[in-house]
């Protein structure tokens, strides 16, 4: 219950017009801060829904695969240049953003992640690494502005933001590939 309340409070504080407008005024903050925060809010609230509707998650997301596909779909959708623009100009798209990212991306991610095998996890990370590199390249080198509501420089900045995130993910993948955690840790005890 607590988690639901915290999540909703955070969600509301992000939806508040001054906060939302401020975050959306800078392209990279819109995509790399506001959107991930919305997903994280979903992840915070996930435990509540898992406890409340255990059968639902057990039945429909048994191996975690449907959930992660849903997560990928939603996040890919919001990585399109167009949706960024429309979130600014169209009220309904904006509302869809505030609903879809926490509830259709954050919650399924939290529920699926633990169910996935390490290969599954790494494939998801590889997918996003490749996607980030591609999108980053696109944003940096696009001859025309891809977004009508942002300056070209904002777009280049976002492109580099994607590339840096991709570099972070690559470091993680390399670390994961070359360093076998079982050589270093007996059992990863989660609290």
């Amino acid at each position, binding site marked *: 219950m607590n988690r639901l309340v915290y999540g909703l409070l955070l969600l509301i504080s992000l939806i508040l017009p001054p906060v939302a407008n401020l975050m959306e005024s800078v392209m*990279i903050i819109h995509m790399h801060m506001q959107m991930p925060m919305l997903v994280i809010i979903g992840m915070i609230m996930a435990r509540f829904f898992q406890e409340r509707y255990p059968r639902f998650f057990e039945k429909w997301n048994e191996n975690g695969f449907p959930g992660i596909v849903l997560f990928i779909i939603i996040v890919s959708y919001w990585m399109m240049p167009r949706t960024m623009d429309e979130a600014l100009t169209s009220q309904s798209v904006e509302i869809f953003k505030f609903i879809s990212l926490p509830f259709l991306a954050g919650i399924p991610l939290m529920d699926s992640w633990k169910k996935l095998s390490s290969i599954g996890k790494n494939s998801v990370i590889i997918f996003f690494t490749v996607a980030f590199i591609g999108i980053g390249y696109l944003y940096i080198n696009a001859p025309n502005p891809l977004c009508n509501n942002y300056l070209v*420089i904002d777009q*280049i*900045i976002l492109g580099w933001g994607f590339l840096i995130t991709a570099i*972070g993910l690559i*470091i993680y993948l390399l*670390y994961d590939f070359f360093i076998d955690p079982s050589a*270093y*840790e007996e059992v990863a005890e*989660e609290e």
Partner: protein
Amino acid sequence: METVIPQAGKAKTVFKEKANKVLGVNLQDALITKAYMSVAFIALFLGGILGLLQGLNRAGLLELPSWLNYYQVLTAHGLLLVVVLSAFFMIGYYYAGLSHTLGGLLPKVRKIAWIGFWLKIFGFVLVLIPLLLNEASVMYTFYPPMAAHPVFYFGLVFIVLGVWALSIGAFIQVANWRKNNKGKHLPILAFFATGSFVLLVGATAFVAVEVLFMIIPWTLGWTDGINVLLARTLFWAFGHTAVNIWYLTAVSVWYCIIPKIIGGYRWNDFLTRMVVIPLVIMNITGGFHHQIIDPGITPEIKFMHVFMSLAIGFPSLMTAYAMFRTFERTGRAKGGKGAFGWFKKLPWGDVRFLSPFIAMAAFAPAGAGGIVQSTNQLDGVVHNTLWIVGHFHLTLGMSVVMTFFGVSYWLIPYISKRVLTPQMNKLGIVQTIIWTIAMIMMSGAQHTVGLLGAPRRTSYTTYGEFSSTLGWDPYLTMLGIGATLLTIGVIIQVYAVFNMMFFAPKGETEFPVAEEEENAPKTPYWTERWGLWVVLTVIVVGMAYVIPIVDMIVNAPPGSPPFKTW
């Protein structure tokens, strides 16, 4: 007073330790630390003497001879104390710690440590040659478009290479230990060392990019102009972090060593690690506050970086609490009664405690000053005045260096298989008192006169007998007196170090790492996931720097040619 020489009765705990601890220090590893400590304290001596020249000049008491430029002296003072003393001490200390807590250095790590040592020494020689020829009086910040002789920058490259070698050595050592000790937590001192070396690599990466890709091609004439603002930004991403690494090193002493010296237990292991992790993740982004009044950066970005800088204050405040709580517990365990009775029970006569304690106490005003400087509007008042100099003499000259001094009174005997005699302890106390008084005088004067507007990095001047600058004179004189006292402190300290290294009575000295309390709660294992912390650091740094740096590159003015203005 706690006795300083470890007594036979205390050896009981030592028996339980691993073999190398019983046998004392590994001599081959000790040699590494000895080499680093010797360089560090020689640098302290030289840097201290240069500091005296400066202080006296600034006080208007001494005119430098014509062959010695004030700014040359200042550059050397900064490099010797901020780069050589701190870095060499830190590496010597951590390598001794790794050797002690991880069961001796691996042969290849030992080799790497020596390669790193000679790379750094070679680098410093390269830096020193143009400096002595007055071809590199550019300060340790070397802001372009002021350009030193290219050899100066080549030297910096070798220093960075040395740092990387040493970091890799430390990582290999830690990885090897973890492989052989599955499921165990990295010993706390090694945990601090890992964090510090991760930060060191991250920080030097920025200066490496600046020097390798911007400055060297430019001073060699391969490129016409340099992006002045970008170079500054890259420098401060390194410069501020470097200083914080020395601070993190001091913090490791406070958490791991001091409780043992006062005869208590370590602070909650989990919370300690939770101080190290955010300090690593959020540190590099703090460097931006050095550019608060620079043009070409939007107020929004500056404001974001105020937050990033102040965020580092949070783990520091956690540390302040942890330290005093540890003191209080230990004092009470020893029979201290009442609200402040425990305070009296602390071993005030032990230099190994007194010096780091004063260092910690100094961090209170030093940290408060730091918050002032990293806050947009307040920085406008003190930016580039002597206030700043006062600030880092409090943080580095007291908080960090006094902790290091305190360490030297057990680390040097430990690596030399000698003991700290009561006489030496007394000398150390005297040194600590002199240093404290001198630093308070000097940095107090610097803070005050900085508020009155006296600029930093300026030789003695009255700006044509300008009336208000004459009001600065009493403070500048006080600064000069402080500098003189400090030189006495330096001489005592350097004497103490080399005496303990070569002449003190033979014997065994322990490496005092405190234990956890017996019923201490278990630390979650995820704190060990260094891969994750590194990735988080990369992403946080990336997000903080991507906006301004892309802006600086895309909207850059035509580049500036090199200038030699001295």
